[in-house]
């Protein structure tokens, strides 16, 4: 971007955006470059969602079905606070992230921690139960009607490529979060402990890592990442209580694609799926891109079941 100028866009937030997928508002100046920008953006958000999911998986060996519901919870927290106070939703995003960290700890304490040693399916069923309770409660409290943040955003443009401001904010948020998370995991003692536990649970225990505490932290961080991604999504599209579903399903594909438990894999997988979706939505009819996403998933299962960047398999 050389010079940016704010352009007033006639309608914002929902031009041609469907409630179930990240829509691409197509304007006259749309080019490959524009699609690339959108793909990068969506890939970043997918990466965030998948990072939380794959972290919980890698460290705790738990598949968290409530991940999408946690995203939705964050959207409604930001939306409620912003509507009640009249302030811009951007201020409340950090609050939602912190709140979700707390919610994650609570969910882990009451539903996952007691059955950490039980068969894998039990944890999957429990998190699915949590998802149903969360989503339906949100639906009852806020009605199933689609909503959007009360925020007026223009768009930023350069050289014929237009980026709605909401998308730019979302991109900045997701890139910052991914880098922050990356630094935390790579450079801090705690991050190292988390990676160590993901790598070898009993080994981590032997070298004195309190893996029970790491579990709490991991689930809290996973929920917080879901919350951040969730809070950022309404910047680019309208939302309803069910929007978490499609992100969750694609996040599963991404974590398998990248390698279950692999942090760089989640980011790479997020980018791949982001590109497939944005270009697929533009060039293919209907939701054929979604068929392609599942085809990729099955191909990976067939050819490289440990994922693109996954090394170990259990």
């Amino acid at each position, binding site marked *: 971007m050389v010079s940016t100028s704010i352009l007033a866009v006639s309608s914002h937030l929902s031009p041609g955006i469907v409630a179930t997928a990240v829509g691409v508002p197509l304007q006259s100046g749309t080019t490959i470059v524009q699609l690339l920008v959108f793909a990068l953006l969506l890939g970043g958000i997918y990466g965030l969602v998948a990072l939380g999911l794959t972290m919980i998986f890698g460290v705790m060996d738990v598949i968290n079905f409530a991940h999408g519901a946690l995203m939705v919870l964050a959207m409604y927290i930001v939306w409620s606070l912003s509507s009640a106070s009249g302030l811009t939703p951007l201020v409340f995003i950090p609050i939602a992230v912190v709140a979700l960290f707390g919610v994650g700890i609570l969910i882990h304490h009451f539903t996952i921690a007691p059955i950490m040693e039980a068969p894998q399916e039990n944890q999957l069923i429990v998190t699915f*139960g949590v998802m149903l*309770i969360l989503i339906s409660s949100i639906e009852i409290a806020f009605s199933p009607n689609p909503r959007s943040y009360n925020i007026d955003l223009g768009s930023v443009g350069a050289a014929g490529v237009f980026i709605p401001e909401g998308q730019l904010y979302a991109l900045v948020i997701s890139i910052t979060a991914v880098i922050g998370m990356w630094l935390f995991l790579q450079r801090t003692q705690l991050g190292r402990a988390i990676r160590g536990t993901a790598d070898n649970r009993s080994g981590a225990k032997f070298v004195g890592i309190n893996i029970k505490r790491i579990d709490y932290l991991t689930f809290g961080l996973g929920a917080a990442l879901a919350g951040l991604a969730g809070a950022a999504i309404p910047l680019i599209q309208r939302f309803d209580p069910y929007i978490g579903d499609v992100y969750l399903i694609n996040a599963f594909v991404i974590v398998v694609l990248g390698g279950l438990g692999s942090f760089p894999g989640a980011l790479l997988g997020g980018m791949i799926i982001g590109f497939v979706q944005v270009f697929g939505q533009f060039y293919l009819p209907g939701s054929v891109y979604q068929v392609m996403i*599942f085809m990729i998933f099955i191909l990976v299962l067939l050819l490289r079941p440990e994922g693109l960047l996954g090394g170990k398999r259990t």
Partner: protein
Amino acid sequence: MSSETGSSLSTVWHRYKQFRNESYATPLLLGIIFGILIVLPALLEVSIAGYSLGTRVSLGMLIVTLVWAYTAQSWNIMSGFTGQFSFGHAAFFGLGAYGTILLVSNYSINPWIGMLVGAVLAALYGLLIGVLCFRYDLRGHYFALATLAFAELLRFIINNIGALGGASGFIKPLPREYADGPGLLAFQFSTDLPYYYVILAFLLIVTTVAFVIRNSRFGLYLFAIREDENAAAAVGIPTFKYKLSAVAISAFFTAWAGAFWAMYFDTIRPDTVFDLLINVEILLPAIVGGLGTVIGPILGSFIVTPLSEIARQSLDLPGTDRIVYGLLLVLIVLYSPKGVVSWPKRLADLLGWQDSPTDEDAVDETHN
């Protein structure tokens, strides 16, 4: 030792325990359950002191309850018996529904034939999933995720193919368009009562199949795979072959429920028959009732479905039924992972009726 307060209830429990260890116990209990189910619609009409069951429970609710009991029983053969946890049985359910409705709408082919075609398709799809997943030794939640992806794949494929009805799906044709009129042959009836007995017959068939499998050498192999697949393979059980058989049988029968669904309700759409929630509705009764048991899925469905229906009707809020599902999932897995069928034993333990809590001779309900 029976306690001094050895009440008559304690004696009843010991009698029951003895009975439960007899080989004829499960068939007899099943016989009683099916006996009750046969007369249940008539009982709805009976009014005792001005109160009749029919005011709370409708025939339609019972039909839906039996559908989920049926699917849970089918799911159980693969996931409860063999331990291959499927989170994508909506694929088989949907294939049954689409096989039936496509053939009857487009070619006026009798829905019963359509049902069998759908069931064979589902079994083949199950084999495809099985071959791909088992070949790469996907287990536990890797496998669960893969099955979910295969179900979602079908949903999006059908959503995008106009010839298969696309996103708007199909409206059930009138019976006169492909048969002489409503009746058993047309798989369409003018009242709910015949539907009830059709799905009850389905349930009887799949329950018999499940019972026979449980008590056969084949069933023993499946349970061996569930308990320890490596050990089972080590003693020479061809685990790959047996896992595939379990998937195919389970898929074949699950498709029948889809066919029934398509002929009972007026419309089907990819987003209803392949829905994420269908996967849960299929497996929930088996989990609540007791994983791997023959009686469990039936008991479970009679707890789950009426409870959620009544909650939804009395609170009059959409989504209440899903909160009930969610609570049941969480509570059962946390506090009673062996399901409702284990409750008599747990009650006996609680009240000190057992000779000792770890009594090896005690009935293990999960093996019935």
